[in-house]
């Protein structure tokens, strides 16, 4: 007799204990280095414990696994998907690995990220992965980010930019008033920049 209640052969990536173990192992050090969470001292022993905990969850997932991972958030697992899963975390890790600590250093790093975004858009356009219109939108958004970074730099003693700051603030509907500090302009610009980076990474995949 045919078994009507047979379970599917595979499972989704997000149902994998190995996947979440890796996320835990990687997230702790990233949060510590990149966001510098106030009050969350993940240095030294604590950092090691977080990584070990993630490794243990992964190991548990490995020894107790019953199904292969066949999809990611419902999208079937193809060779391309596997490559993206392999490379994207490395990109994110690398992007997060900066020694920048002060506002000035973070600002300097943001200018470099902007270069990376424009170069990535040019590469993706020449590879046919994004359209001309999409590339133009990236360029326009990158210009708005540059305006915000220039404004941040002007707060640190740099020259006052002649750009239209209203275009940058227009991205944020809930913004009560424009920032008045370098850190404020940097944070605002970074939010648009991260969104751009994310879009390009998705196109790259």
């Amino acid at each position, binding site marked *: 007799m045919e078994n009507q209640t047979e379970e599917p052969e595979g499972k989704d990536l997000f149902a994998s204990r190995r996947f979440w173990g890796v996320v835990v192992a990687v997230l702790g050090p990233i949060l510590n280095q990149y966001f510098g969470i106030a009050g969350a001292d993940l240095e030294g022993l604590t950092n090691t414990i977080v990584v070990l905990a993630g490794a243990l969850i992964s190991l548990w997932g490995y020894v107790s696994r019953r199904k292969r991972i066949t999809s990611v958030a419902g999208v079937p697992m*193809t*060779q*391309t998907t596997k*490559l*993206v899963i392999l*490379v994207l975390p*490395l*990109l994110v890790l*690398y*992007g997060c*690995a*900066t*020694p*920048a*600590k002060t506002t*000035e*250093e973070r600002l*300097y*790093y943001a*200018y*470099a*990220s*902007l*270069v*990376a975004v*424009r*170069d*990535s*858009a*040019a*590469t*993706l*356009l*020449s*590879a046919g*992965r994004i359209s*001309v219109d999409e*590339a*133009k939108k*990236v*360029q326009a958004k*990158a*210009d708005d980010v*540059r305006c915000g970074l220039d404004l941040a*730099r002007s707060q640190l003693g*740099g020259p006052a930019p002649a750009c239209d700051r209203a275009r940058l603030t227009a991205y944020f509907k809930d913004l009560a008033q424009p920032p008045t500090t370098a850190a404020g302009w940097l944070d605002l610009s970074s939010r648009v920049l991260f969104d751009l980076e994310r879009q*390009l*990474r998705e196109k*790259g*995949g």
Partner: protein
Amino acid sequence: MSTVSTIHVLRDLAALALVTSKFIASLERANAVIARAQAEGREITREEWDTALALDDAARARLDAEIAKAAAG
């Protein structure tokens, strides 16, 4: 895996590798400058700022050129 899907994967991989290398190269430069400034206990110099701005201007020009080339067909 069929030949077509193999080509798709290789093409995607090539695009991803290019994007990755661009990201890494740009961020590597910035990290080197920041690390050097920290090691020497100083702020980022005027020349280093000028270089950063010039690099963005150059990247902007490259993207503009690529847009013009793609638009021209």
